[in-house]
């Protein structure tokens, strides 16, 4: 049966409340009976006593006034005393009636006797009074005697009746006191018994509850103490099934969860540590790479500036070349004209030479004819024949020379013609060249602006690289910070002991040193206009980062 603490407490308190209620009821009942008795005493006995004593007083008063009435000799005073006595008697009668109403049977009997006696007295008094009114010495003496005998006797009888009532009621009072004492004793005994029972039950129940709770609570207390000291290896055994048992269950679950979380956190912090260390190294490498990049970009920028100046020079040269080419074209046109003129002149010369050749030929013929004539003349013509032969030879030479000149002039004409044609061909070529050079010039200008843009872009690039470098340095610092935080986290977690399997408490002894910053080495600026040589070999040959790359030497 599962009795949880609430049920137990409720049951215990219910029992205690019931016992308390019983005690209260008992006390209340006793008090009520006592009150009833007291009321009875006060309302009947005491009142009777009071009334009786008052009556006795009044009887005394009346007897005294009766004496004075007797003693006084004056009618007025007698009447006055008679009035007083009448009034008192009235009160007395009323009181007697009241007493009668509250008296028991015996009392009523006594009152009956009292009334009889009093009526006797009143008869005596009426005689006394009538004697006193006569106011003579005899009457007075008679009245006095009457008063001393009959009156006194009746009054004493009435007083005795009242004393009887008093005695009777005093005895009743004493009886009531005794009764009350008895009741009180009884009630006290009952209440003491009940209280003792209640105390015993409360003690038993309290012990039971405390005993059942205390074990679990002390278990929980020790478990929580262990946890507070960071020891999570504790075994929590739960035997009870009440709230504290549940508490222990939850505590065990909590410890398990805490263990898991701590293991997780420990592993995570391990990972964070290694990752942040790696990140630190990587970002340092990145920073270094960025710096190298920046240096390279600087080199590129200066190379670009050189290129720009080269392009400028190219542009100037191209413009110069264009002018030169245009001038050459016009010169060549001039030359072509000259050559054509030369050709014409040569042709004229050839014509002239042809005429000379003709003349020489005719001379030759003439000389031949002369020679024939001379030969036919025989010896007489011999001398002439010699002359004719000489003339003919001269003519022949002239002819040969003329024909040679002719040939030469012909070939010259053809050559000059060819030259002219070539020159004519050259002119459009040169003009074409000039146009091309113009295009080259325009292209160079465009190239110039392009190179400027490239230069600007490189500058921006450079800025970005610088920013990257600083950012990655910051990142490295951040990663360092992160790793130290991870270390702190480890240390914090190492406070908890979760068991042998998990190295949460293991101290990290080997801290990964950041990778040595490779020296940024830029190749010396190559002289002249051959661009730059970037030495990316890191100063000492290739490292593992170069394995992914192929090297080409140019």
């Amino acid at each position, binding site marked *: 049966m599962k009795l949880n603490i609430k049920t137990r407490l409720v049951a215990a308190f219910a029992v205690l409340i019931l016992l308390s209620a019983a005690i209260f009821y008992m006390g209340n009942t006793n008090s009520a009976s006592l009150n009833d008795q007291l009321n009875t005493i006060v309302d009947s006995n005491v009142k009777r006593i009071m009334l009786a004593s008052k009556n006795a007083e009044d009887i005394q008063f009346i007897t005294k006034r009766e004496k004075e009435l007797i003693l006084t000799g004056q009618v007025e005073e007698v009447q006055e005393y008679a009035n007083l006595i009448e009034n008192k008697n009235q009160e007395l009668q009323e009181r007697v009636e009241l007493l009668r109403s509250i008296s028991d049977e015996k009392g009523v009997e006594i009152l009956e006797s009292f009334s009889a006696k009093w009526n006797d007295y009143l008869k005596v008094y009426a005689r006394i009074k009538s004697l006193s009114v006569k106011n003579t010495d005899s009457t007075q003496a008679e009245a006095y005697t009457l008063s001393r005998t009959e009156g006194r006797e009746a009054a004493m009888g009435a007083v005795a009746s009242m004393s009887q009532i008093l005695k009777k009621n005093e005895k009743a009072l004493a009886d009531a006191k005794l009764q009350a004492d008895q009741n009180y004793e009884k009630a006290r005994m009952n209440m003491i018994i009940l209280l003792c029972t209640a105390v015993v039950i409360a003690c038993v129940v309290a012990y039971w509850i405390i005993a059942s709770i205390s074990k679990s609570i002390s278990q929980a207390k020790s478990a929580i103490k262990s946890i507070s000291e960071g020891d999570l290896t504790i075994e929590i055994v739960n035997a009870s099934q009440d709230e504290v048992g549940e508490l222990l269950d939850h505590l065990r679950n909590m410890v398990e969860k805490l263990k898991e979380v701590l293991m997780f956190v420990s592993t995570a912090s391990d990972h964070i540590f290694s990752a942040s260390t790696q990140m630190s190294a990587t970002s340092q490498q990145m920073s270094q790479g960025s710096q190298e990049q920046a240096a390279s970009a600087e080199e590129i920028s200066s190379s670009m500036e050189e290129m720009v100046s080269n392009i400028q020079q190219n542009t100037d040269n191209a413009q110069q070349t264009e002018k030169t080419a245009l001038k050459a074209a016009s010169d060549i046109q001039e030359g072509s004209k000259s050559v054509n003129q030369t050709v014409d002149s040569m042709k004229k010369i050839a014509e002239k030479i042809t005429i000379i050749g*003709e003349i020489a*030929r*005719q001379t030759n*013929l003439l000389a*031949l*004819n002369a*020679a*024939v*004539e*001379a*030969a*036919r003349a*025989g*010896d007489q013509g011999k001398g002439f*024949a010699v002359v*004719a*032969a000489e003339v*003919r030879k001269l003519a022949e030479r002239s002819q040969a020379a003329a024909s040679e000149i002719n040939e030469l002039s012909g070939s010259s004409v053809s050559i000059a013609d060819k030259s002219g044609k070539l020159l004519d061909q050259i002119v459009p070529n040169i003009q074409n060249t000039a146009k091309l050079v113009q295009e080259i010039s325009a292209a160079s200008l465009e190239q110039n602006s392009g190179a400027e843009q490239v230069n600007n872009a490189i500058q921006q690039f450079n800025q970005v690289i610088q920013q990257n470098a600083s950012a990655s340095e910051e990142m490295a610092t951040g990663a360092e910070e992160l790793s130290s935080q991870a270390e702190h986290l480890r240390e914090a977690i190492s406070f908890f002991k979760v068991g042998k399997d998990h190295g949460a408490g293991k101290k990290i002894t080997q801290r990964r040193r950041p990778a040595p910053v490779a020296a940024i080495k830029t190749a010396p600026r190559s002289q002249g206009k051959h661009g730059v040589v970037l030495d990316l070999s890191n100063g000492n040959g290739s490292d593992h980062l170069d394995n992914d790359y192929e090297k080409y030497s140019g």
Partner: protein
Amino acid sequence: MEQQTLTSHSYLTFRLGDETFAASVNHVLEILELSKITKVPRAPHFMRGVINLRGNVLPVIDTRIKFGLDKADDTVNTCILVMNLESEKQKIMLGALVDAVQEVREIEQSSIQPAPSIGSKYRSEFIEGMVKVNDQFVMILNLALVFTTDEVSIIQETAEEKISIA
């Protein structure tokens, strides 16, 4: 004159095609430049036509055709040899077209070698002999035989006809 002819004679050398020929200056009257040749109808095929030589009609023979050579175009060097041929019956003048006239040369009779009878493309009776001048053989023509009487007379007649017609 007879004496001289025995020892040495003057010869006019000229060219026809690749060959050089020589003709005795005794038959040569003069050398003319090629001028307009008037064609004569019904003339022999070797006769080019006639020219006007100082008022006389001179028949002109195309020597290349006569010698059986290929016909060739006239050049500036083409000349007309005005020859005076004496036969037993008559004395005739005619012109012969040659490719070029070279020179008047005296040739020793002794140096003249007889023409080979076989193997020459020319009829051997036309050739008196051969002489070597400057490592080149020159054929000495017998002009009287070259232009036979018949042919010459025909030419003469043709020329005269032409003239009479003219």
